[in-house]
């Protein structure tokens, strides 16, 4: 009787699992197709990093990987901010790459769930504004497929003697946009040599690490300059800003990154970005 019971239970188990196993066999899997970017959407990637963050060079390599993959559709800025960027606690190298704007953006685009983290077009992914490096490519390719609501161009003038930079951003709406439109202009510098903690290097403190896309300054207020309360199709705008570039920065290695975002409370998606070198 006892053995009979056990056999009954085992048979029941077998039948249940047989049907469950069957349900898993006939799946149509998702075919992964290499993504080939097209169109004129330019996506903004803001990376939060720090010299004391041992995994952050992995993020920097991913940025270069993505810029190679999307040369015409991606602009990137590396913002040294937060815990791992504080030289008092991570006294690595000689420079403090933090900026006042970067620290504000670190909170504005938070919360931070770890380093390196990145924000793609200031749009949350699955509820998180800052996302890990393994999710950047996906978020960027999603955004590239959206046509830009506004198209942007940059014209600039740089005086090598006075080091005054004048940037004019011109925009034209390709579709109507309701809501406050803010324009942000960032200045970045690449080719800056200073030490960095790198988990994949041996030894892991790399004294001559080449830092790229460092946020140096903003020509607009940190949350962007409010330029319009709405825009209709075909409407244009032109905004000009000036700054004197710090003499310690190498102008030839600097880039201007401009972008417009629609700001409504806690939503501030980037509509389009554009970049240009400070010098030609």
């Amino acid at each position: 009787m006892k053995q009979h019971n056990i056999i009954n239970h085992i048979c029941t188990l077998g039948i249940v699992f047989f049907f469950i196993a069957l349900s898993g066999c006939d799946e149509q899997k998702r075919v992964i197709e290499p993504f080939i970017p097209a169109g004129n959407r330019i996506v903004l990637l803001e990376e939060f990093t720090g010299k004391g963050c041992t995994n952050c060079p992995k993020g920097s390599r991913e940025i270069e990987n993505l810029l190679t993959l999307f040369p015409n559709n991606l602009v990137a800025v590396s913002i040294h901010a937060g815990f791992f960027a504080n030289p008092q606690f991570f006294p690595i190298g000689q420079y403090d790459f933090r900026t006042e704007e970067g620290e504000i953006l670190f909170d504005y685009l938070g919360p931070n769930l770890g380093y390196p983290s990145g924000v793609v077009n200031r749009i949350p992914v699955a509820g998180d504004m800052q996302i890990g490096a393994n999710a950047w490519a996906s978020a960027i390719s999603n955004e590239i497929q959206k046509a830009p609501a506004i198209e942007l161009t940059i014209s600039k003038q740089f005086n090598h003697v006075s080091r005054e930079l004048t940037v004019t951003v011109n925009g034209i709406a390709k579709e109507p946009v309701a809501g406050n439109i803010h324009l942000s202009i960032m200045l970045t510098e690449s080719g800056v040599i200073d030490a960095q903690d790198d988990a994949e290097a041996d030894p892991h403190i790399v004294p001559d690490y080449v830092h790229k896309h460092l946020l140096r300054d903003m020509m607009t207020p940190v949350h962007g300059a409010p330029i319009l309360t709405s825009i209709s199709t075909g409407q244009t705008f032109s905004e000009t800003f000036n700054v004197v570039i710090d003499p310690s920065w190498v102008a030839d290695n600097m880039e201007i990154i401009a972008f417009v975002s629609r700001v409504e409370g806690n939503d501030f998606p980037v509509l389009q970005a554009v970049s240009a070198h400070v010098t030609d």
Partner: protein
Amino acid sequence: MTPQRTILGLLFCFMWLSLWAQEPVSLSGSLESNVNFYMRDAQIGAANTPQYDHQQIGTDTWLTVRAQIGGFELGARYDIFANSSLLNPTDSYTDQGLGRWYIGKKIGKLSILGGHIYDQIGSGAIFKAYEERALFIDNALVGLRASYEISPDWTIKGMAGRQKNLFELYPSILKGLNIEGFESLGKVTIAPGIGIMHKTISDQQMDALAGSLAQYTPGDFIEEAPYNTIAATIYNTLSIGRFTWYVEGAYKSEDVFFDNYAARTLWTGEQSIGKFVLEPGYVAYTSLSYAGGGLGISGQYKRTSNFSFRTDPFVGLNRGMINFLPPMSRINTYRLTARYSPATQDLNEEAVQFDVRYAINKNLSVLVNISNINRPKEEDNHDIYTEVYTQVTWKKPRKWTLITGVQYQKYDQELYEGKPGAPQVQAITPYLDYLLKLDQKKSLRTELQYMSTDEDFGSWIYALEEFSISPHWIFEASDMWNISPKKSADGSEKLEDLHFPTLGIVYSAGPTRYALRYVKQVEGIVCSGGICRLEPAFSGFKFNLTSNF
């Protein structure tokens, strides 16, 4: 449904049931509140986070209420995190809301439960939904569970839902089935079980995953990704006289998961570490134990390969875990013997553990525990953990208890704590715990530990004095002294033999306990059941309130 609506719904259910059942309501609950007062101390690394920079006070609170009425079971928990360091040790997290609700009913042989469900299948290898507050783990399954008693000793259980993600839900769908029972065949008993867990990731998750995989170079490219993953387990406990043998085997079908150690080639031609891979996985676990005549012997073996089973392929660390793999090292409790604890490696781990206990007489017993963990598929960081732990317990009933022993550890800090270039920590730690009963109410407990190591922060001495006046008061004072420092907490070259003192007072009044401590705590790893979390350095006061009502 918003939390407010859920609370209102529960209140409505509760009131309706009270009226309908016309019988007394059984109400109970609990409160746990931790308040941290942050006092910056850059010298020990307690600085550079929003809490130390400007927030000053942080709190984590859980208030639980349970009710039983008319055969129904209802419950809810309200969670508050204000300036909390639990989510990210280097940042601050603030949110509050309904952390749990549930309603259940037993109808004959059928039991149903809806809401936030904590449960597991077998040892948890394919599914374990649980809450571990110190590690900020709360991976409740939010959905429905139904279990049916096939016979008094056999139960079948099914559940479906989505995993909790803070105050939201992950989008993937989880479904599980478990049958387990018990049979006695004379002197032999068996407790077999079989379970299956099915995960379907959402279209949104698949789009995100496909978006990442589509950018991989040809050598790393994955052509197809499954929406569904099935994990199945079969287990049994066989008892024959004084022997008990547990065996479990679990298999997971092909699943895309992030392998932190896999090499990837970028489009720039550079190599980077970490990529998504598509692999099946398995776990084999067994333990054999003997207990009798004052002797207890147990041996365990576990082999894990690619058994990362998460509800979202993009989450890591302690987030989104569907399963739980049992740890294969001793769970230590003393401050220094617990300083280096190995987290379970779900991608590649082979581990053995032996434990022998012998009671020489009623007052004297000895224990030896040996564990070894390695990564069989890796050449680098192959042997990652070894521990030999000895303990002698000697008692003079109603007078004193002495627990003493020595621990030896070899711990791969580079792997377990993600600290590149960190050498393996080798530590020898003698310890002593002496409890002296002064009279029927008063007792004095002394802990002394010395950790000798040339790695990490260097050698430590720890001393604790704890004076208890039963049943209300405990006064404690301790110091952890970095007697031979090798590394400065603030990263500078200046080495100082820092002290990390704690002064505390605990008052208990029935089911309520109040604890106030002044704490200086070195950074370290906090583990529970093989799941670990980096605990940053702390300086300030900690107030803890727990109550059951």
